[in-house]
């Protein structure tokens, strides 16, 4: 007997047990009795679209047992909103779950829904930073951060400082470079120019060149440089002398970056050369 069968709070509900899918179902999982029991009650209550505090308890239990259960998250969100629950408390709970389950992305959509409903983002930038301590490139967390910036207009509320710190920790963090680009250029639709503005472009180019000087064999800033050129409409040829500082077709011993070579190849009109192929073919001396 599962724990809900004896619980008076659930006495009005007849659980819907799992329909196995035939006598010999594929990928049949040996659920624990507790999981099977809890799911059976959830199925029953979802069938009547019931929202109540006991449903919050039920979904919390299921999330503990299987945080990847997207249906449970979606139903929980509906329940929270229907009951006008304290969403701050929910955020606290979410923090614990998120830190414990790095790869889970249902959590981030749920957080999105909660924070959007709250219409306030206090503490969010800070929490996101805590997540990045564990994994500085967590894709869904970076997507969430972009959403926060856009949703709450955080463009000039410490985003560049934060991103610069991330890049200081790891100049090869491509997610951070992507975020940097977003913060600089993300408001074009609102009339705030990014690198299409000459001053901004000059600043960005210098920033990127400095980063390259620190680690020339690093794809991210070279991509960024190309992005600046493309976005602002300047020809790649302008970057020729810079690229030559890190690679030279005449002096193979001076090659410090395959990405510099790649850029030179493009500038000189040889298109579509895969970097790996280029590296396999180049002449270099140690």
């Amino acid at each position: 007997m599962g724990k809900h069968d004896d619980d008076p709070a659930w006495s009005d509900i007849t659980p819907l047990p799992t329909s196995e899918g035939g006598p010999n179902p594929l990928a049949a999982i040996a659920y624990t009795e507790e999981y099977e029991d809890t799911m059976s009650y959830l199925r029953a209550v979802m069938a009547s679209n019931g929202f109540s505090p006991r449903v919050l308890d039920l979904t919390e239990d299921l999330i503990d047992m299987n945080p990847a259960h997207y249906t449970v998250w979606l139903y929980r969100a509906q329940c929270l909103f229907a009951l006008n629950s304290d969403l701050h408390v929910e955020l606290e709970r979410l923090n614990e779950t998120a830190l414990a389950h790095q790869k889970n992305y249902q959590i981030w959509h749920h957080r999105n829904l909660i924070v959007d409903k709250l219409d306030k983002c206090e503490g969010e930038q800070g929490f996101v930073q805590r997540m990045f301590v564990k994994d500085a490139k967590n894709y869904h967390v970076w997507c969430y951060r972009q959403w926060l910036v856009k949703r709450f207009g955080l463009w000039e509320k410490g985003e560049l400082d934060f991103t610069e710190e991330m890049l200081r920790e790891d100049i090869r963090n491509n997610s951070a470079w992507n975020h940097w680009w977003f913060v600089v250029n993300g408001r074009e639709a609102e009339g705030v120019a990014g690198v299409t503005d000459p001053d901004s472009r000059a600043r960005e180019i210098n920033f990127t060149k400095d980063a390259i000087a620190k680690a020339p064999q690093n794809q991210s800033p070279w991509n960024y440089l190309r992005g600046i050129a493309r976005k602002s409409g300047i020809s790649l040829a302008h970057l020729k002398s810079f690229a030559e500082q890190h690679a030279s077709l005449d002096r193979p011993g001076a090659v410090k970056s395959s990405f510099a070579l790649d850029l030179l190849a493009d500038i000189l009109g040889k298109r579509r050369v895969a970097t790996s192929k280029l590296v396999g073919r180049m002449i270099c001396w140690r």
Partner: protein
Amino acid sequence: MTSSQENEDDTLDELLKDKARIVELSDDEDEDDSMAGPPFPGNHLKQPRRKRKSKLQPQPQPQRKVLEIPPWIFDTNELFHNDVKTPSRHALDKTAAECLRFLTLLDTQGLPLNSHGLPHLRRKPHADFLRFFIGPLQTGFTAMDASRPWLFYWCIAGLSFLDQDVSEYKERLIETVRPLQNPAGGFGGGHGQYSHCACTYATVLALTAVGGLEVVDRKTMWQWLGTVKQDDGGFRMAVGAEEDIRGAYCAMTIITLLNLPLELPPDASARKAGLTSFTDKLGGIGGGPSNEVHGAYAFCALACLSILDAPHISIPKYLDIDALARWLASTQTTPEGGFAGRPNKLVDACYSHWVGACFALIEAALPGTKDGLWNKAALVRYLLTCGQQTGPQGGMRDKPSARPDGYHTCYSLSGLSAAQNHYWYDSESSTTDAGSGRLLAAFNWQAKRGTAEELEVLKVDEEDVVALIHPVFVLRLEAVEAARQTFEAGGL
């Protein structure tokens, strides 16, 4: 670490840090190394070295071992200015180190080798592994309770890629998915779960693989898709769930295989807006507008476009192909030779499909492109030497330090097929069915096995070659064709 392993590490370090001059390399590794002049790259490596074998893997091999190391394996980053170590660099170095002993064939892991010295594709152990992965599963798999359709697809499709007969799964699969199909349409991850684009996609593909699509309620499926379709042309993954490019690809796959009525004409400006906004400053593709570019999303976008119209028409219309081709090619890692999902991230065998399978689609859109966008031999070598789990259980894995699973097995096989076989688009065939309005572009792909000469270059024997796999739907071609015929008439 055993002392024999330490010796091998030292040997590797010596091999790769040796200050020999390296001359321009040709594709032919077997070049005569007795030539005068600058030492040929292979020379200093071809000295007899005594390799001590681990006690666990006694191998009756000759005392002298000649390592022919392909050019791309030289750790590129050692050739350049030694720049600052960062967490990324540490992670990249660690992965390279774990792979090098296998890539160089210093350690062949006790595996049976093909005629070129690479491990054979372990067809039977991998098939056994997939059969196990779809079998009854232990409690630890509870975390997959919302993803069971993926298990159906990875295992059944994977088995079919290994030329196994999967018809035995037809009846069982049909019965298994009945409780997953919701009365309001679509499939969820399990009984009582909301319908979800990914679960529905995987279920439909698995059913296609076994010829069991009759169990799908096409009418309610169509209605359900209408509830997740967005104004901007995209699709949410489920009602109330997130919207990203996966949704569009999943939905278009379902609509096209099942021949459901298409509500928006392919050129709807809404759809165009949806797709172009996913590309970034350099033509790469992320999950959503302004998100970081990622290989998996690139495949979803390219495959989705290849469903909407002929690839040479739809892809250039919405994407910068040159930039995308460059970006995709740049994700092939050195020294491993596999693909990473993002710049400065680690190689992972699953990207053998998410990136590797993009090239057939891209090449169909690039006029006059032949080989050269990516290094097929390097991918094959990575998968055969680093991707295969040893031991009776088999399976394929992300990288040597990872455990094998159905996902990586399925997509590694797809990557191998992309490297070993040829895929092209038949631009003579029509792209829309006049009667039912069905988009036909995705059904116009042709494929053939690599030639004997090409397989030589890839260093594979015939038995290491994976089946022909449809570039858009990632199933055997005959399964896709059967689905096309089944719902030819259309309607609901």
